[in-house]
């Protein structure tokens, strides 16, 4: 019986102001910035500090409002940008599939392990993700280089005669993404699988279902929330990933995070970068909404 709220009647009012603090913080520093992104995406680039034109100007007693959709026009006209969006979504999708294929059995193995061992096994999976993300990506640079450990080993074994180009390819990006994001897939899957009632499987076995059938008719459908949560935790950030394609990818790797970075830092074109970001947010709105719904259901947030 949830009846606690009535208690607030004799709580000092000051507490409410205090409790509003996190709300205000996120409103100002997370939500409000998107308004500025939207605003600057309809400005024009300028050689100024900051490098964009003002939206509203008071000039000689005339109020000028300049809204320019030139940036969006520019993005749609240049196939490079559309290619970058499409590539990012494609690579994020396949990375998610690979993470799921590796992560699901891992989460399943942890959830099925004896209760007292589960924490250790989970710790084993999560430990690498607490060390630096940058360093984990860096580790693969040393392994995948032309004169790196993998090529050296393969040549020593006589499998190949000359090094295979692995670093600065899409293959390296996939490796890096799966390596970095695997724990984010395992954690929600484990949290879901460990809650499953074992008697459901026993009932399925009792009704004559074999191992494989039990998995696909009982376990997997019941773990759907975990699958979606884990997939969204991988897919959404990977769409905008910058560090991995920058360090492991090559010229063929055109991802939107990298393009945005270049527009912003190299070309100093803030309006185009904003437009890129705005379109990315619009693309990700549906997956984020999906993730939010699952979080609400599973975690009750």
């Amino acid at each position, binding site marked *: *019986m949830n*009846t*606690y709220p*009535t*208690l607030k*009647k*004799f709580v000092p009012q000051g507490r409410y102001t205090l409790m509003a603090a996190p709300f205000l913080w996120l409103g100002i520093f997370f939500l409000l910035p998107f308004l500025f992104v939207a605003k600057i995406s309809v400005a024009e680039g300028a050689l100024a500090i900051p490098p964009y034109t003002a939206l509203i100007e008071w000039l000689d007693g005339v109020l000028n409002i300049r809204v320019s959709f030139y940036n969006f026009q520019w993005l749609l006209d240049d196939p490079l940008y559309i290619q970058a969006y499409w590539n990012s979504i494609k690579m994020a999708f396949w990375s998610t599939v690979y993470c799921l294929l590796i992560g699901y059995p891992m989460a399943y193995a942890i959830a099925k392990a004896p209760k007292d061992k589960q924490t250790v096994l989970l710790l084993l999976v999560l430990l690498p993700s607490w060390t630096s993300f940058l360093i984990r990506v860096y580790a693969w640079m040393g392994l995948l280089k032309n004169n790196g450990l993998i090529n050296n080993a393969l040549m020593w074994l006589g499998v190949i005669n000359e090094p295979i180009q692995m670093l600065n390819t899409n293959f390296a990006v996939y490796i890096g993404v799966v390596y970095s994001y695997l724990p984010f897939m395992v954690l929600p899957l484990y949290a879901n699988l460990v809650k499953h009632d074992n008697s459901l499987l026993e009932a399925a076995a009792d009704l004559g279902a074999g191992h494989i059938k039990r998995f696909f008719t009982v376990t997997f459908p019941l773990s759907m929330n975990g699958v979606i949560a884990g997939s969204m935790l991988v897919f959404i950030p990977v769409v905008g990933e910058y560090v991995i394609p920058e360090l492991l990818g090559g010229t063929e790797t055109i991802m939107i995070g990298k393009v945005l970075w270049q527009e912003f830092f190299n070309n100093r074109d803030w309006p185009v970068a904003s437009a890129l970001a705005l379109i990315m947010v619009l693309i990700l709105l549906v997956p984020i909404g999906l993730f939010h719904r699952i979080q609400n259901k599973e975690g009750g947030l």
Partner: protein
Amino acid sequence: MTSDELARKDGRKHDEILLSIRNLNKYYGNVLAVDDTNLDIRQGEIFALLGASGSGKSTLLRMLAGFEVPSSGSIMLHGNDIAHLPPNERPFNMMFQSYALFPHMSVEKNIAYGLKHDGMSKDEIHDRVQSMLKLVHMEKYASRKPHQLSGGQRQRVALVRSLAKHPKLLLLDEPMGALDKKLRTEMQLEVVDIIERVGVTCVMVTHDQEEAMTMADRIAIMDEGQIQQIGSPVDIYESPMNRMVAEFIGSVNVFESEIVDDQENYMVLRSPDVESDIFVGRGVSSAVDDKSMLFALRPEKTFISMDRPDKDKNVTRGVVEDIAYLGGHTVYYVKLPSGKIVHCFLANTERRAERPDWEQDVWVYWQDDAGMVMRS
């Protein structure tokens, strides 16, 4: 026994009123959880609020504790309305269903917790905690943490924690709810013993009728936010005021019937389910036009026999439909010609006596004063 304790025993006459609840209402949105309730709690009694879940009993208890603010009405303690006083300013303490022992504090600290907020000196607190631990024979466990105790021990600690401040009123929320059945009966008697030794007035909430009848001096039956009946366990069981109370406490056979004859010291009813007249050895005091009545009969007062009993009233034929052997007694489900099923308990006083069998024709009968008459 000290003179103090003797005085307390004397105080248990249960006539001085400690707390009066008047016209108490509680709405959640549009839902009325407690409906215009009036209730007096007497000094020194153990009072049970008994009802199914959703009957409003917990809401009523939580309004006494101060966790819920009534929508309207008053709770009078010594002439002061405390209905809007916060829980920390009420001289009442509660033992929670989950015990709510603070997991990060030792047993000792748990008991001392409430005393610290009373501004007692360290020595006083220590002495009080020791006497409380002694009360439940838990002195050895003072430095244990709650998770290092068994279920029964936790309950003892929870009980003395709520007694430590010498509250004017002790509130128990489903006191045996977290215990298994065997331990429950044991603890019921122990808790009552402690409460009586301390002499505190107590209001408890339970959905378990056995628990209410074992522990309480008086019981209020609650249903749909209203108190249906208040009385001693015997009153409630033997003289229920309506069908809800009769059916809630124990099991009962209810016959819809009509008054044929209503005299000062007897009355005669007729029911389509019963072949003979129903003779009741007392009259209904108020003469009303509505002749329809409910005649209720407890199964243990409903007899069955294979031979026709020597009487022409309070008897009817039937066929044994089902038999449930429960060890101490057997329940017979007897189908009357009208199709109605009647429950009869037969005490198993002999080990292997000859008993009615399935499908057997039997007679069902009862004594003149066995049944209860209620308005329908």
